[in-house]
């Protein structure tokens, strides 16, 4: 997704000029993608160069230039709506990389890494839920008669996307934790079988898989 296509989608709704495109873009995306006006004008210039957007008449009294989509621009936008977003690229998310490294890095308590992340993500989820609740309250308020431009709905959908993403991350962390716990259990079982009776058992300090031993009474973390 580029700012380019976002601006084209707005222009498909009617001619507009730079400053208004900027504020519309931010409002419609719930402020999750702030733009500066220079970025908007640079993008518009490129769209004009590529024949996707053109100037709509002369500047107005305040010197503002309105833009509109060309037929080629409309065709490109139509293609964008119907083309699935590519999600097949290799993940480069910091958390994924961090945990992948933590599992094998010596001296890293993976369980703590997972728990710290989960706490942070749950907190984020709670804050998003508060924003969502406000948005729902506002939506109900507008349903009772006040003017709604549809932006409330757009904002709610952006929030829900973030809620789903945070929820998926918590589920993934739960999964990581249970896989590590199972792995640690299996390894302990193997070690119990392999341990000779001379007391040279594996050193638990080197349990880099990180999952804590099963709870035994009196052992407080």
């Amino acid at each position, binding site marked *: 997704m580029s700012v380019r296509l976002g601006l084209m989608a707005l222009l498909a709704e009617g001619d507009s000029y730079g400053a208004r495109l900027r504020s519309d873009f*931010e*409002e419609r995306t*719930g*402020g*999750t993608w*702030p733009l500066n006006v220079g970025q908007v004008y640079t993008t518009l210039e490129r769209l004009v160069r590529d024949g996707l957007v053109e100037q709509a008449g002369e500047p107005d009294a305040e010197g503002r230039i309105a833009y509109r989509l060309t037929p080629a621009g409309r065709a490109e936008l139509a293609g964008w709506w119907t083309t699935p977003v590519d999600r097949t690229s290799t993940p480069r998310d910091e958390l994924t990389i961090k945990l992948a490294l933590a599992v094998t890095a010596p001296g890293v308590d993976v369980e703590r890494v997972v*728990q*710290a992340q*989960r*706490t942070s*993500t*749950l*907190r*984020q*989820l*709670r*804050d*998003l*839920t*508060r*924003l969502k*609740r*406000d*948005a*729902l309250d506002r939506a109900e308020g507008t349903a009772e008669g006040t003017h709604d*431009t549809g*932006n*409330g709905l*757009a*904002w709610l959908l*952006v*929030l829900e996307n973030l*809620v789903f993403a*945070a*929820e998926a991350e*918590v*589920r993934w962390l*739960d999964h990581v*934790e*249970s896989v590590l716990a199972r792995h640690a259990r299996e390894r302990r079982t193997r070690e119990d079988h392999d341990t000779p009776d001379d007391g040279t058992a594996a050193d638990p300090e080197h349990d880099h898989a990180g999952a804590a031993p*099963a*709870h035994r*009474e009196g052992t*407080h*973390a």
Partner: protein
Amino acid sequence: MSTPHVVISDVTRVHGHDETRVVALDHVSLEIHPGELVAVMGPSGSGKSTLLNVAGGLDAPTSGTVSIGGETLGSLSPRDLAKLRRRRMGFVFQDYNLIPSLTAAENVALPLELDGMRARQARRAARHTLDLMDLMSLSDRYPDQMSGGQQQRVAIARALVGSRRFVLADEPTGALDSHTGEEVLRVLRERCDDGVAGLLVTHEARHAAWADRVVFLRDGRVVDTTGAADDAEDLLASGGPR
């Protein structure tokens, strides 16, 4: 901040003996203030339900204390404990537990009638609670005439009818679809915003997110708690359209 309504202090609960000995709760402490909803999360077998049962006086701790509204549960006679449970707290379960042969209003009135209140007065209190929760349109319906979400909202009304100010909810959204589940959580949240203390057990992060705090249990121990609220408006560059 206000005085906590619920104080769980250094509670340990051990089931079984010797070889079968299981520590379900291990030195758990938790406070819930009026107006606060606390969610408990954790893997299965982590002690979530035991914590809820201990907090609600349905189970007694092996050591440690639980007090509700200043009364220590362990010091009460069984009779007084039952009375305190009837008058001061309400339970919400996954499967609603409404009586099929009673209307919504009669179901909500039931705990008050069982506590000795006259039927007419109890019905009036029930209707007041239903009205408060925007559920008056359901008052004459029987459980089989209501959706799962409506039944659960009536169950919350029943849990909080009269003067009860502590609600304990065990996976209240477990039998509901995601959207309806959230509607139920919203109702619970509103009740807490009105001053009720709430304890919610859930395995769904999206539902725990309606709480003020999430307590995370593992192997009977509190391993983490999401702290005080951040400023939600700072979370994103803007708070969305005004």
